[in-house]
């Protein structure tokens, strides 16, 4: 056991801190509004220019070959500095690990540099109106077009975060209508400017436009990596379920929600308590519970990374990870609202905004009910039925 950082890591931290303190923009409007998105895009390009867009990626793809440990350090410094939400996150943190694992060289070479440079902006197309928790209930279909050497996609995707502002979508389509629920799905990459795509944004509870529905009507996508600029297939045809499960594991685990994010929220909560908590022992207890939770998540993550860097995989334990951070995020923000008391309903308070977003945590990335089933069945080994 060694909970210290190496000199090299400390140097990396110092470098990140200096650069972030000098460059992080403050007070951007939400990236889930059209106006805010444009400003966030500028920031993403600034990050990329300085090599911070995806630190753990190879240099060739726009990263800086940082270790997973250094990635954690970067994230901690990023949130410590009050860095804005990453509007590129669905690409960099969710799709990219899948492309690294399942993509061809041509796909990696084409998509990853454009992704880190925020030229291509990816949204996810998992959910459909009748396939939410029941992801295998997907009905959007991919029909083979042998003559054209590709597929024709039709159907409707929904809940695609920032879908109205993105340029590309990744998602599952039913390529074999006869196969059982989990089979016969293929993982497609789709440019949203392709003919036949319509995107409609709609409002989120926290007041941002945020979500979109994406309608596909006979949209052509070429085979595999034949022409990445027009999209393609990631992993094998009819192999989409396995490929998607790799993405959802990333989504639940630490790559989506690094501990630095919650540590930073916990620090701000402590500041709020000092400013307005009035030395109330009940509020203090609530703040401390959340603060300990953020510490626990940080340490748990260090254990995860130790395991991953030793060649292990967290597997179904990523569901524990997701349950914990989603509930921690609510606890952190609810404590803040309890400190704010009657002022909690005042909308320009960042904790109120954050609370509303936190409430979506137990829903997205697989509802917490599904995650608890997974923990029971795959971590504890309880019978499925």
């Amino acid at each position, binding site marked *: 056991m060694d909970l210290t950082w190496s000199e090299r890591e400390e140097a990396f931290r110092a470098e990140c801190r200096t650069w972030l303190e000098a460059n992080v923009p403050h007070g951007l409007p939400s990236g889930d509004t059209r106006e805010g998105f444009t400003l966030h895009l500028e920031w993403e390009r600034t990050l990329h220019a300085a090599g911070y867009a995806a630190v753990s990626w190879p240099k060739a793809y726009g990263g800086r070959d940082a270790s997973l440990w250094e990635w954690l350090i970067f994230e901690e410094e990023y949130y410590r500095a009050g860095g804005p939400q990453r509007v590129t996150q669905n690409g960099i943190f969710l799709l990219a690990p899948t492309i690294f694992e399942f993509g061809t060289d041509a796909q990696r070479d084409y998509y990853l540099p454009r992704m880190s440079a925020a030229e291509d902006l990816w949204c996810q197309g998992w959910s459909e109106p009748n396939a939410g928790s029941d992801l295998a209930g997907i009905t959007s279909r991919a029909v083979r077009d042998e003559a054209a050497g590709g597929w024709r996609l039709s159907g409707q995707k929904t809940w695609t975060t920032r879908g109205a502002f993105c340029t590309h979508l990744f998602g599952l389509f039913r390529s074999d209508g006869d196969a059982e629920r989990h089979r016969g799905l293929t993982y497609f990459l789709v440019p949203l400017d392709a003919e036949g795509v319509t995107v409609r944004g*709609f409002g989120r509870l926290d007041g941002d436009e945020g979500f979109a529905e994406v309608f596909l009507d006979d949209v052509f996508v070429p085979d595999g990596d034949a022409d990445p600029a027009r999209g393609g297939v990631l992993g094998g045809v009819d192999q989409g379920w396995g490929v998607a499960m790799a993405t959802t594991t990333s989504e639940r685990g630490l790559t989506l929600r690094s501990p630095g994010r919650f540590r930073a929220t916990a620090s701000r909560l402590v500041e709020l308590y000092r400013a307005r908590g009035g030395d109330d022992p009940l509020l203090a207890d609530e703040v401390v519970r959340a603060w300990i939770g953020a510490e626990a998540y940080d340490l748990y993550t260090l254990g995860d990374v130790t395991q991953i860097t030793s060649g292990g995989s967290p597997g179904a334990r990523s569901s524990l990870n997701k349950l914990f951070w989603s509930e921690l995020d609510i606890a952190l923000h609810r404590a803040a609202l309890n400190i704010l008391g009657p002022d909690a309903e005042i909308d320009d308070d960042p904790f109120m905004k954050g609370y509303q977003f936190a409430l979506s945590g137990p829903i997205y990335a697989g509802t917490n009910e599904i995650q608890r089933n997974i923990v029971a069945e795959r971590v504890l080994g309880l019978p499925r039925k």
Partner: protein
Amino acid sequence: MRFAFSDDQLAFADAVRELLTNECPPEVVRAAWDSPDGRNRRLWTQLAEMGVVGMLAPESIGGLGLSDIDLVRILAEAGFAGLAEPLADVAAVVVPALRDHGAAGLSDELLARVVAGEATVGLGLRSDGSTLHAESADALLLEAEDGLHLVATTDVELSPLNTVDGARRLSRVVWSPSEETLLAGGPSAAVEARDRAAVAAAAELCGLADRMLAIAVEYVTERKQFGVPIGSFQAVKHHLANATLALEFAKPLVWRAAYSRTMGDPDASLHASMAKAQASDAAEVVGVAALQCHGAIGYTVECDLHVFLKRAWALQRRAGDAAAHRRRVAAAVLHAN
């Protein structure tokens, strides 16, 4: 002993529900978000005409001369409908304050106009630090250290605030108490006003929770995943059973608080605090369960749920949050004798 509303009380509540079902569906509540002052005069007039606004005012000036027990069910109906009008503040706090402390000439005439729906009076408690619908009010009932003051809206400075619930138009009020503005000196009138505000918020929260639960029950019965309605999953059942449990054991405390106020029970303040503590917690439990059972759809503004959820968030922490009221109960129960 009889712990139930009378047939008359239930019939009145039903009539209010019918009015609000017709005149205040979610579309109307949403419209308040976008209207200039968040008010709906037509609806307010209808409520005044029904007698709801002046329920506690004497019949001699156009009121119904009824009691807090009659009113508490109506306020729950207002919560159920998501009514954005300042009914709780006006009917449950301002009207009895003007009724009981009407010595100042101003307040008699004002009370008649309030009861008729021609004027409204905003409420500013020190615990809240802001006032609902102050900009559209004719006067303000404001709590200061020395008691309750009645102040013309023209004599204060208002700073509007952005609110999570767009139908709640809140303002900070800057003003100076004076002998002329003092309506009722000493602590008892202010304590009564705070207790009344707490019970009114508790009643609204019960109605809001009832509505959120109803919306969730309807959704999980219709929405299918894995080939069955999601309401058939045990986790969903248990979320909504927990919500029901929290709510059904909060309501009796709220009804009792109104009864104790009506009867002048010496424990009326204690009962008000128990009611507000439990109703605030119940609304939180119900809101979280309802949102979670909706999944992503509940997280959109297209779904009505958020209208009620945001109102509940606001009321949970107005007129004292659950912790503050439990502190008050502790002072009475643990440190007595």
